[in-house]
Structures are given as C-alpha cells and as structure tokens.
C-alpha cells in the first residue's frame, strides 16, 4: 500500500495535522498532540479513520513512522 501524506492545519489546540491518503482516497486524519497533553505531547493521534480504520478511534503512536506502518497494515 502506498500512503501519501498531506500536512494540514486544524482549527483546534492540536493544530498540526496530516491527511493520509491511499489510492482509494482519504483514510485517516492524524494530529500531533500539542503541549496540552504533557507526557503524550509530540505523539500522533488517530483523530479520524475512514473505511477499514473507522473502528480504530483511540490509537496513539509515538512517532509518524509507527502511525504509517499501523495504517498500512490495516488497509493493505
């Protein structure tokens, strides 16, 4: 599976976002957790998932690489 990332800005405290596309379309919105989240700050949160990822709403990843792998495994 080839994933394409497009940086985006969210109108929220956690404002650093990424739109994640597969060949089929938008599969996820990831956000980088801001300083608001103390120990979790800097980690990536699956803010929204679509299709196969619709059920996985609570996932947090230590870095972008593990988020990408996780998404690819589930939609591949």
């Amino acid at each position, binding site marked *: 599976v080839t994933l394409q990332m497009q940086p985006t800005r969210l109108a929220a*405290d956690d404002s650093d976002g990424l739109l994640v596309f597969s060949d089929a379309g938008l599969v996820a919105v990831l956000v980088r*957790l801001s300083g*608001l989240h103390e120990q*979790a700050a800097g980690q990536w949160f699956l803010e929204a998932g679509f299709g196969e990822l619709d059920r996985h709403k*609570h996932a947090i990843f230590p870095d972008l690489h593990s988020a990408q792998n996780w998404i690819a495994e589930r939609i591949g």
Partner: protein
Amino acid sequence: VICGSILARSGSLALEGKDGALVPTSPLDRLVRKLESITELTEHERQAVLSLPITTKDFRSDEDIVREGDRPWQCCLLVEGFLCRYKILPDGQRQIQSFHVPGDVPDLQSLHIPVMDHGLATVSPSKAALIPHDAIRDLTHAHPNVADKLWRDTLVDAAIFREWITNVGSREAPARIAHLLCEIFLKLQAVGLTKGNSFDFPITQSEIGDATGLSTVHVNRSIQKLRAEGLIVLEKARCTIEDWKGLKETAMFDPTYLSLKVEADAA
C-alpha cells in the same frame, strides 16, 4: 450544614475529624450514613444495620474485589477509597459502568443474582467491609423496613445507570465529564466526604475515558476546556469545583436521579 444535621442524628456514632470530614467509629457507619442520605432509618433499624457482622479488608489500587462469573457469598461495603464496576470485552476494551464512593455496596445485587455479570475493582487503595449474604438476608427478614431501604438503594443505583446511558449516548465530551464530576461531588458530599467544594478524585484520565466512551486525548482536551472556562481545578488526585452553577449548566446536570434526601449544593 449537612454535616451538622447528620452528626446530630447520628449522635455519638460519628465524630468530626480534624480535616472536617466525619470519622466513623465503625465501617458500618458508612452504610448507615449512605442509607440516611436517601431515606430515613429509625434508631432500631440503625442499630440492626450496625450489628451486621463484617470482615474488613484492605485492597491495593486496580485490584479486583469480585470478578465477572464469580458467585459471591458476601457483599462489599466500601469504607474508604473508590471502586468501579466494569466489563472487559473480548477485544480487551474495558467499559467502566459506574464509580462508587464510601457507603456504597456496589454488589448488593449478588444477594439475589448469584452470578456476577460484571466485575468490581478498586480505582485507588481502598478499605472494604465484607458482609456475609446470610447476615444481610437475616437482617432483611427480621427488619422488612430495612429491606425496603436497601431496595430503594438499588433503585437509585439503577437510576444512576439510566443517567450514565444518557450521558455516554447523548452528551458531548466536556459535558460527559462535567456530569461525572457533578455526580461524584454530590455523592461524596451526601456522605460527608467533601471539604468545601473540593474532594478526592483519584480517577485517572484513562479511567474517565473507559467510563465515558472517550479516548484519553478527548478526555484531556475536555478537562482542559473545563479548566480554561474556570469551572474546575484538577490536580494531585483532587478536584475543586470553582463554579458549581457553571459546571452544572455545562453538564446539563439535574440531581433528581440521585434521590438525595437533602438537596445538597456546592457553595
């Protein structure tokens, strides 16, 4: 004001502690205090409850007291600490179904429903008084009015579940958490365990998430929002309600379902 009236009614059974909270002389005072927050007990009935045989036991944080599938032969009266009832789904997700404060007997239903359909665990280090079913059964047979009052307690318990269904199904994230805080505050206040508008709150964000169907990220965002709006301060396992009216409005909180005898309120 509420503490004073309960003290007067309880006579020498409870003493005012140095931090302003009541210090029961027997763990069963907790149960009396709880029942008296939602109903009246005669002196005779109170003495009957206080005569129940108990075994006290200390539990660590996050320790099971009763597990799903167990067939308990005793009920657990919480004396100190916090408990939750929960269910674990096959995929490992935990749903916390209720939180319990001292005076609650969360597994009272096991007296009549033999197999536990959920678990009961500690949220923080806790002390429980375990009461044999036989003793409670004898009490209810000898004192049918006490049976009525325990029944009333389980009906209030059911009302709290109905409110939680509404909370998890219909309120938005900050309101869900605000509602939980309003409920715990009033339940603790009713048994004399608040200090002004402040109370022990050892429940973690992860546990709040499991209770409200929210991710820890959404729990944290919601708590920050309640903080930023000047409604609450949450630090070091203690919650202070800064604006009770505002918190109730945010939560769309109506305490009717708690059936508290004294209409409690924050300052």
